[in-house]
Structures are given as structure tokens and as C-alpha cells.
């Protein structure tokens, strides 16, 4: 178990996640987390469409597998790798829900942000190692400006 594992979130990726979460409010926003140089650096957040049905979007998100497939191919052409996913919880805390947990792919990074109408309040990261395994919180450090 890698309980205290640390991931660096690049400023550009963080800005994109926040922007998308606010833009999609009151619906859930979602997307992919990409990296090129290190599998512990989240360099880019690439937005995907929330394909949940109409009103369900406020409390649920779904990425179309075919859109994911197309995004993956594009991403890989540019030399990036998918290392995880982000989504927002409008007016809710940045904690994993039962549905989030059930759909987690082992080894992938999951970032959740808590968002209200005009602010993103909290950002947390989660992983699990095996399908039936326990979820653990990972440390997400914002990239510091040196």
C-alpha cells in the first residue's frame, strides 16, 4: 500500500480542473489526467464530456468509452500517458462516493474537487491497488513556483 504517495499537480492542470468544475456547475465535470515525464506528475488535465443522462449530471458523471478511446489515441500521439481521472462534486465534499469507489480502476489516480457556484473549495486524490482492495488517500501537492 502506498498510503503517503505524493503526486505533483502542475499549475496548468489545476487551473483547467478548477475552470472546468466552475464552468460545468451545477453539473459534475470530468476528464483525464495526463503525464509525460513522470508517473507522479499530473501535467495536464484534459476535459471529457459528462455523458450522464440530463438531470443526473448534477450528481453523476460518465465518460463515453469511445470518446475515451479517441482521446487516448490523440494523447499517445503527443507522447502523453493517461494516469488517472478527475471529476467534481458540486455542492458536495471532495470525498469518494460509493459509486466512485465501485468504478475505480486499480493503479489509476482519482482527483475529486468540491465546487460551489463561484469557488473550488477542496481537492483530494485517491487510489486503490486491487479491485477489491481498500481505497487510500494520496497527497496531491500543487506545483510550486521556484
Amino acid at each position, binding site marked *: 500500500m502506498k498510503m503517503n504517495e505524493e503526486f505533483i499537480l502542475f499549475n496548468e492542470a489545476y487551473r483547467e480542473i478548477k475552470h472546468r468544475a466552475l464552468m460545468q456547475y451545477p453539473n459534475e465535470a470530468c476528464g483525464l489526467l495526463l503525464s509525460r515525464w513522470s508517473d507522479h506528475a499530473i501535467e495536464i488535465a484534459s476535459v471529457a464530456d459528462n455523458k450522464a443522462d440530463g438531470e443526473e449530471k448534477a*450528481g*453523476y458523471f460518465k465518460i463515453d468509452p*469511445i470518446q475515451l478511446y479517441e482521446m487516448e489515441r490523440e494523447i499517445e500521439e503527443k507522447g502523453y500517458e493517461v494516469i488517472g481521472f478527475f471529476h467534481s*462534486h*458540486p455542492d458536495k465534499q471532495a*470525498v469518494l462516493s*460509493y459509486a466512485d469507489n465501485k468504478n475505480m480502476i*486499480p493503479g489509476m489516480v482519482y482527483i475529486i474537487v468540491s465546487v460551489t457556484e463561484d469557488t473550488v473549495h477542496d481537492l483530494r486524490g485517491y487510489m486503490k491497488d486491487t479491485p477489491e482492495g481498500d481505497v487510500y488517500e494520496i497527497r496531491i501537492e500543487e506545483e510550486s513556483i521556484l
Partner: protein
Amino acid sequence: MNVYISATLRNFFGRNAKVSVTASTVRGVLDFLIDEYPESKKIIFDESGEIRDFIKIYIGDEDNTSSDKWDRAIPQDTEVLLLPAIAGGAPNDSIISDERRKEVSFDDSEVERFGKHLLLREIGVKGQKRIKAAKVVIAGAGALGSAVIQYLAAAGVGTIKVVDFDEVFLENLQNQVIHTTRDLKRPKVASARDTVRNINRSIIFEAENARLDSENIIDIISGYDLVIDCTDNYKARYLINDACAFCAIPLVFGAIYQYEGQVGIFNLNGGPCYRCAFPAPPPAGLVPTCSEGGAISPLPGIIGSIQANEALKLIIGIGEHLDGKLLVVDSLYLHTRIINIEKDSKCPLCGEHPTITGVQEFDYDDFCGLKENQEEAAIEGFTPEELAKRIEDQDSITIVDVREPHERAILRFPNAIVIPIGQLVRRMNELNPDQDTIFICKQGQRSILAINTLREAGYTGPLYNLKGGLDAMKDIVFSHEGAWL
């Protein structure tokens, strides 16, 4: 043909993006992949062999995930896509609606009383109003109930209904801290009501001095927001779980035994129920109840406090909680762990094809092995008075004590031979088949198990059970012993 493996799943396929597969159906593709990459099996299928919810199989843009499409022939030049379904949902809302919250107001004394909640960003005025609007049923005013009732009253839960049929006994005072010596022989619900009134007179306290059964439970819990199970037996647990599922009321479950406790949340928004976690109770008599097996005093305080904390989080709608999980606390070695509880699609109560359609149609006594009349008809027993008379008359009988050594240290039964249940079959030849043999334990349940064990092993001599066990025999004084048993 080629199979494209999504980047998100490649760790389980040797990091390959494309795998060349010899197969002509989706089933053949999956078999090939699992054969080639055994690690991938656990990511494609769950423990019961069903394809995982987050795995999708596409041929072109056609979804072929459903297993009824797996035997169709697919042309060799097609590409099969193995993709993840990335999805998730928001954490649960408060179980108290905004409309109900808005109907609540506070006076100055309440602002002062609940100040420490109001200071917390996640609770605040809105959360405290939800707490006040909440209507909670607590089943059992015993050990767990003591902590739950007092903390929920102190936290300001507006309506608290407590259900218990029992009276306060001296032996309860070791861990049922809501009752005091002055409450002995009073109904537990009356004692609990007095304590709650002393905490906060404005709480609506409803005392239900009754034993929960399939006739009354639906009426008792209907219209409430949450049920907290603080009972100490399987029959009540299954009954409460089932009734909560039928009434769509979430359930905070708690249980203790010796040094260990469990807490879980069931029936929340269609999540798993107690039966998904525990499809059937253990055979009657095998696992002693808390009252038979004992429990360290603060344990129900710890477990009950966690139940109360979970209840408040559900009411306020904050934090992570034990929905679909079971927290196990070992207070002796200070270990805790959380076990994931999956919803069981074959659950007879909440699965896809339920067979339990109502609490009144289900035989809980039979399910929990509590059909005393049947068992007692099959197994002959002595009442404490009958056994006492045979001892007084100095009849030739054998008395076998099946209790554990530490139980015998509390109360020794004179002239009994000691055989733990696990050794009975091996030591069967120590019994005289021409003589009446009487089995004793604390409450008369394990002794039934002992007799059944011997019968199954082929023992043919006369076997009897002490009805009600030594607990029922406590008040009998033997003239030749001159002592309490």
C-alpha cells in the same frame, strides 16, 4: 484479430496497447487474454465471475459488453476494444431534506447549547437544523443504546424513539451507562427517557416498551429518517434490516462481542443490506450472544459512539461514511479494519429477484434456528427444579458441563464432568449410555448443540438438556451444599 487495450488497463496486460489474438468470438478473446495475461482476470471479472461494471467491450462503435453477445462470430479483420467505463457519483446528500431543515428555528439557548457544532464549517447552522429536524429510532436501550441515545440527545436530535421490552437488571449496569442503580427493575425505556430529559427537555422522546416483532416493526419505524440497531441478537438484526429495506429507511448497524465490535450502514439509497453482508446467521447456540459471551465495559461505548457519529454524518450529509462497508474494531489489540460490502445481486431481500416480500411472511425464528418448541420436543430437558430434585435424591446421573474454563471459574457446578463441545465426540466413551446424562451451559443453548453433536456422532444413551441453563438455576439452594449455585 487485434485487441486494443485502453491505456488505463494496460498494467494488467504487460503494458501492451495491442494484443494479437486467435479467436472468433468475444468469449474466445477474453479466454485468450486471460490465458496470456493471468493478472487480467481479476480486472475483467469480479469474484463471482461476473464482468466488472467498469469494463466495456466494443467492436467498432458497438457495445458488446453484455455476455449474450459473446458467442457471436466476429470477422478476423475487426478490432476489439477493451475499454473502461469511467463513472462515478456525488456523495450522499443529507437524509433530511432542505424543506424540513428550513422549517426549523433556534432560540438563544440552543445557539449557546450547540455552539461547538455551529463552529464547525461542515455542520454550522444548516447542519444543526437538520439534526433538530431528524427523527431517529433506536432499537435497544442496552449497552450500545446507552451511548447512541445519550450522544444523539446531546447532539440535539429533535425526535428520538427508543424501543426496548426489558427491565434494568443489576448485571446491566456494568456497561449500560444510561441506567443507574436507582433504575433497577424499571423498564429500560423509562430509565432512558429520564436520562434524555435531564440532557435536554425539548427533545421529543418516544418510549416504546415493546419487543420488536414482525407484527409491530413496520408501524414502529414508519415515518422515521433513520434506524439504529443496538440489539444483541440475530433475529432482531434480520428483522430490523428487512423492515428498513421495505420502508426505505437507512440503518446504522452495530454489534459487540467480548473485545470486538462492528459498525456498518445498510439500506442507504439502494446500497447493500445486512443480508448482503451476512446471508444467514450462524447455527443457534454456536456463537454466544453478548450476554452469554461477555463484553468489556467501554466497548459498547466505543462502538455506540461510532454509530452515533455515523448517524449524525448521515443526517448532516457530510464526510465519508460506512455505507457499503463494515468497520471492525478490536479493542484488545487496538486493530481496526474496514471491510467492503458489495451489494449482492442474488440477495433474497434487495437483489435482482427478491424472494422475501414482507416481514410478516418470513419466519425469523426458523431462519435463526430459534424454533424452541421443535428443538425441545426433539431434545428432552429438565427444568432447574427437576434437576435439583434428582441431585437431592442422589440419583445415578452424569452431569456434563460444556462451558468454557473462564465461565466455570465464575460459577462451578459441583460433581459435573467437564467436556468442551469440541472434544465431545472424541471423549464420548467417558459417558455411560445406561445412565441419564444431563448437559449444562450458561443459557441452555450450547447444551442443545452438544446433545445434537453427540446424537449425530451415533451416541445412543439418554441425553437431557438443562432448560434455561445455569442462569435459570441461580436461585436454587441445595440443602447439602448450603450455597448458591
